[in-house]
């Protein structure tokens, strides 16, 4: 989202050499996240795209500490949160909230909407009495475009889009600074997706929120994000501004991913040329890390590959 040209954007999240292994040390070890580093600036929307199994959801869940990272650092406003426990966790979870993918599974079917939304208020003791609580719930319902008399209903009475609005209201209740949205619209119908995306953008402007937007729908991610990271096999392949990644992709994986996106344009589809990706180039045993190819545009590369990528970045400029 438009980064209103603040002079030096502040780093809200710093992820450094984060590793998240499951069943570490055992034969069935899974390296879900394998040494990734990136920053998220205050007020921006950072898009994380990748296919299923790429580790994008795990990244979101590690940042909000639903997992204990295997190694590496996660800094929130400069403070390392990768190892904090219990009491401190409560404090920082007020600042960081999550919107989940499945609007059917992420709301407790036996709770009324107002109790779902106010659960965070109760946990953090943010309201003194029932009137205050109800007033805050009503405020939140207004904000996400639901009606106030929805407060006493149960989740099953709502459509998918409405449920996602309830999930958004719940996340906003504790006035967080940072929201992780894990595929928040992929379970919704096309016409409803646009409504929810617009809502997320409006709220961001109003409350100066920062988003980590995780998704596989590349056209929507491009639309909503300021910067985008492409993830594959637990590693970041490429990171840059949304338009750079889409218009000037450098890594072959990003190119392949973009070439597979279906667009609502029959002529384009008839002439579409898919670029298959051969991931054996990742397994040649060479050390790779994110290297800045042109200012602000990073690609996973060896030292030698940097000049190759620079050359292809040049080609884009000439065109």
């Amino acid at each position, binding site marked *: 989202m438009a980064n209103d040209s603040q002079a030096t954007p502040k780093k809200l999240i710093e992820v450094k050499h984060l590793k998240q292994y499951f069943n570490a040390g055992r034969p069935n070890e899974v390296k879900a996240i394998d040494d990734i580093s990136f920053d998220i600036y205050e007020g921006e929307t950072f898009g994380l795209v990748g*296919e299923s199994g790429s580790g994008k959801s795990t990244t979101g869940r590690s940042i909000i500490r639903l997992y204990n990272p295997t190694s590496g650092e996660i800094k929130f406003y400069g403070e390392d949160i990768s190892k904090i426990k219990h009491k401190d966790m409560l404090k920082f979870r007020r600042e960081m909230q999550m919107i989940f993918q499945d609007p059917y599974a992420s709301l407790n079917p036996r709770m009324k909407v107002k109790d779902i939304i106010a659960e965070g208020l109760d946990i953090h003791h943010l309201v003194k009495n029932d009137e205050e609580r109800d007033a805050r719930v009503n405020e939140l319902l207004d904000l996400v475009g639901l009606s106030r008399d929805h407060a006493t209903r149960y989740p099953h009475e709502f459509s998918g889009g409405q449920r996602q609005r309830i999930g958004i209201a719940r996340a906003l209740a504790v006035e967080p600074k940072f929201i992780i949205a894990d595929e928040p619209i992929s379970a919704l*119908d096309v*016409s409803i997706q646009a409504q929810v995306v617009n809502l997320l953008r409006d709220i961001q402007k109003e409350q100066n929120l920062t988003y980590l937007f995780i998704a596989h729908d590349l056209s929507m991610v491009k639309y909503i994000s300021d910067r985008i990271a492409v993830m594959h096999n637990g590693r970041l392949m490429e990171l840059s501004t949304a338009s750079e990644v889409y218009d000037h992709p450098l890594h072959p994986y990003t190119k392949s*991913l973009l070439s597979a996106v279906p667009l*609502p344009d029959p002529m384009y*589809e008839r002439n579409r040329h898919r670029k298959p990706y051969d991931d054996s180039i990742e397994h040649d045993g060479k050390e790779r890390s994110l290297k800045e190819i042109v200012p602000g545009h990073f690609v996973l590369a060896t030292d030698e590959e940097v000049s190759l990528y620079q050359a292809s970045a040049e080609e884009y400029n000439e065109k």
Partner: protein
Amino acid sequence: MEKILDVKDLQINFDTFAGQVKAIRNVSFHLNKGETLAIVGESGSGKSVTVRSIMGLLANNAHVDNGSIDFKGKDLLKATPRELESIRGNDISMIFQDPMTSLDPTMPIGKQVAEPLLIHGSMSKKKAMARAEEVLELVGITNAKNRMKDYPHQFSGGQRQRIVIAISIVNYPEVLIADEPTTALDVTIQAQIIDLMKELQNKIETSIIFITHDLGVVAGIADRVAVMYAGKIIEYGSVDEIFYNPQHPYTWGLLNSMPTLDTSSDRLYAIPGTPPNLLNPPAGDAFAPRNPYAMQIDYEQMPPFYKVTDTHYAATWLLDPQAPKVEPPAAIKKRQEEYHQLVAEGKIQSSVKGGAKDGE
């Protein structure tokens, strides 16, 4: 063009505790031999119910109150369960949405693929297994010979969907119904599956009904498109006509609310509101309450189909000669301009000017 399937005036209602849901309200369409027809719509629009009725797979509380489904001179709605059984999975077969749940986890995949052959009969087990192996090769399962005895969990999501496709084509059906076959898959896998379906269509000359809500996928696979809303088809035409020269405001809204890779405006166009409740369907155009172009008559009377070209029809009062001329949204106008240019350059056929297609 030969019609292989002809659905007429289909009306399906569901009995629920809350009352009768009018899920399908007078739907008619046909499928030409060898083509791919895409049915597009949101959840609840009735697209899945429509095709399930073709397969005789409706839920117990559903009843067909009117209509006919003509397949090779036989009305499938009047067929006996026995007759249906011999057609289902043989002449007409279906690919289901979720590759994770539509395979039997306890049966080796070779046997699952051969099953339709054994059920429909005339083939020895040995021959059936050989054909199953052949078809698995065809859908791109590498080393199929050695994987016949493997179980579904040993395959990835994309491979499982290939196996599901293998099951549905093993009898070389004349009609293949694909209900959101790529929705659960990643874009790269989705692209492969779509390429595979096109390739198979060429090889085994099947006709496909493709159901999806993803307009990008439709643009890539369909010859013709029918758009459904609230239990009715509201617009149909060739893929170019629907994407470049849409007429119904709902089609405009759908096309407009998807960001293309060059959308950069501040807000996405969002269709306001939600679809109507089909317990009490509205009297007029069901889209009227969400339609910024709605006129008084939209709330009162159901619009008939107006002819745009020989192959393109839309049910909207905007096409009535008495209706005021309206400006479609900017993005749609851009599409229409592109359409006229493409027609002028001869890159796509227009059935008005060229008259090459005789259509209906």
